[in-house]
């Protein structure tokens, strides 16, 4: 197997249905061993992308190259499909035993009975469902069904695994457990994976490469750090968890730093925009720290703003604080922190964040539609 060729090389891929363009991907490259996670806020286009990649849907325009060979022409479709595995949103198990489900992909490939037995047993073991072997799939819980669905895909020993929101509609604890187990297997097998989800926590957790998709277009791809902290536009920013996006005007510049005026306050950031330019500033809540004293700590280049706690929202494991510093600012805090500092709505704090944590989106890329 040639590992220097990308696994997928998508060029000018478009799918038109009912007169409208539902998928438009000018370029996408997936490397060997990569776990690419696409954050997609709603259904538009994500299923179509995966279905096109697995040759279940024919593109209206464009080509997909698999390891350098064009699918449909240089690789026959059936052969190609047998080298991938796809797990859909609902488990879609067959009305028979768990074993028969896991073995189904192998039976389809016409393997011999004892070969199937070995491989299927291993897959059952790997996903912790060996004890469910002879159970009818009608009696499984949601989480168990997902495991069977994934084990079924894995048993076929694919070169690429495609997952379409496999953990949707599960409770958070189940999601957590399944994700952990999946991650373990993916890393062990070094499986090239494309994973689509709307849950950014899941995405950040498992991805070696992160992407954001909306309305059939891929808006940004990059390392998780890149995308999370340097979203190319506001839409992406909001998807990756940037809670604070501020509009400002550049008032002062100095070398690689500048100051922008936002709602009468001055925020220091790193970058090289033009004087007088209108820009957007993105601040992740994790990067905001709070102080009940007059200072933010030893570092002087920190942006510090007195703020009022307008609202505290419980988000499960943490709390989200909406602050008013003349401009809106969102911060996270643990319940512990809040109780230690006795912070309640209406209290005054000092909000602090570093200049380097302020991400700049220049006006040209500021609207939420097309990225070039």
């Amino acid at each position, binding site marked *: 197997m040639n590992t220097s060729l990308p696994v997928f090389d998508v060029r000018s891929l478009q799918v038109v249905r009912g007169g409208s363009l539902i998928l438009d991907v000018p370029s996408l490259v997936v490397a060997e061993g990569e776990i690419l996670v696409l954050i997609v806020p709603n259904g538009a286009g994500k299923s179509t992308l995966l*279905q096109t990649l*697995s040759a*279940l849907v024919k593109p209206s325009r464009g080509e997909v190259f698999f390891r350098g060979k064009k699918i449909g022409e240089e690789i026959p479709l*059936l052969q190609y*499909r*047998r080298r*991938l*595995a*796809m797990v*859909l*949103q*609902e488990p*879609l198990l*067959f*009305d*028979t035993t768990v074993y028969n489900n896991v073995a*189904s*992909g192998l039976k*389809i*490939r016409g393997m011999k009975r004892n070969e199937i037995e070995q491989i299927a047993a291993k897959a059952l073991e790997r996903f912790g469902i060996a004890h469910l072997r002879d159970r*009818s799939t009608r009696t499984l819980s949601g989480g168990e069904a997902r495991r069977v669905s994934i084990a*079924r*895909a894995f048993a*076929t020993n694919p070169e690429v695994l495609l997952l379409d929101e496999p953990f949707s509609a599960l409770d958070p604890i189940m999601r957590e457990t399944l994700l952990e187990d999946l991650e373990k297997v993916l890393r062990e097998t070094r499986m090239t994976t494309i994973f689509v989800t709307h849950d950014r926590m899941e995405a950040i957790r498992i991805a070696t490469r992160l992407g954001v998709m909306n309305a059939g277009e891929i808006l940004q791809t990059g390392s998780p750090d890149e995308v999370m902290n340097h979203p190319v536009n506001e839409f992406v920013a909001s998807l990756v968890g940037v809670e604070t996006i501020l509009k400002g005007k550049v008032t002062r510049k100095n070398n690689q730093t500048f100051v922008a005026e936002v709602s009468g306050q001055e925020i220091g950031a790193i970058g090289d925009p033009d004087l007088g330019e209108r820009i957007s500033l993105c601040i992740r809540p994790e990067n905001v720290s709070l102080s009940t004293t007059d200072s933010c700590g030893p570092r002087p280049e920190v942006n510090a703003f007195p703020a009022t706690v307008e609202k505290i929202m419980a988000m499960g494991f943490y709390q989200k604080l909406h602050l008013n510093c003349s401009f809106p600012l969102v911060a996270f805090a643990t319940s512990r922190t809040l109780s230690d500092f006795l912070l309640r709505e209406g209290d005054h704090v000092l909000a602090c964040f570093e200049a380097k944590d302020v991400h700049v989106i220049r006006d040209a890329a500021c609207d939420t539609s097309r990225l070039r």
Partner: protein
Amino acid sequence: MDIILEGIKKAFWLLVSFDPEVLGITLLSIKVSGSATLISLVIGITVGASVALTRFPGRRIVVSLINTGMALPPVVVGLFVTISLWRNGPLGFMGILYTPLAMIIAQAVIATPIVTGITLAAVQQLPAKLRLQILALGATRLQMLWILIKEAKLSLLAAVMAGFGGVISEVGASIMVGGNIKGYSRVLTTATVMETGRGNFDVAIALSVILLLLAYLINLALTQIQQRERRR
């Protein structure tokens, strides 16, 4: 009421004494209707599943035709099959009018739309994405068809029962194309009509009882299979 009692007594007697003529008639009923049902299953399940899964121009018309076919009057089928099989008719050269084979053909024509219609509905009811998942597992179109048919097996067993029920009880077409010839093309239903026509109500009722018993036993067996599948 006592005429029915008479009939039941006679039925019991005929069965227990293995009356050869009645045995022959019963066996032929099973042979003819069984074969017709089998043929209708092969054609019906394949066509029904294929139409359910494929989009093609005029599909709606085909589906309407299938659904209409389910209500096709057997007597009409009998008439048209007879006309086709007449010695001087289009298929007369085959020389199969007034034979059990002609009866099988007529009954198969009656049962096939029933099986097709039920299969069509059953396969259409399967989750839409299931087809994609099966293809994603690397199945050929034929393998996919087979797996989907297996997934719909509960409904398909209902189709078998409906198809068989429709033809084991059929009499109009069977008389027309079979001729109700003694010891050759006489089955339970045609014999019942003949005996009624002669006024031999006790024999007619006896044959009816045997027919009901037969239909019940076979449906019992099929229901067992269906409910066993369900419980698993």
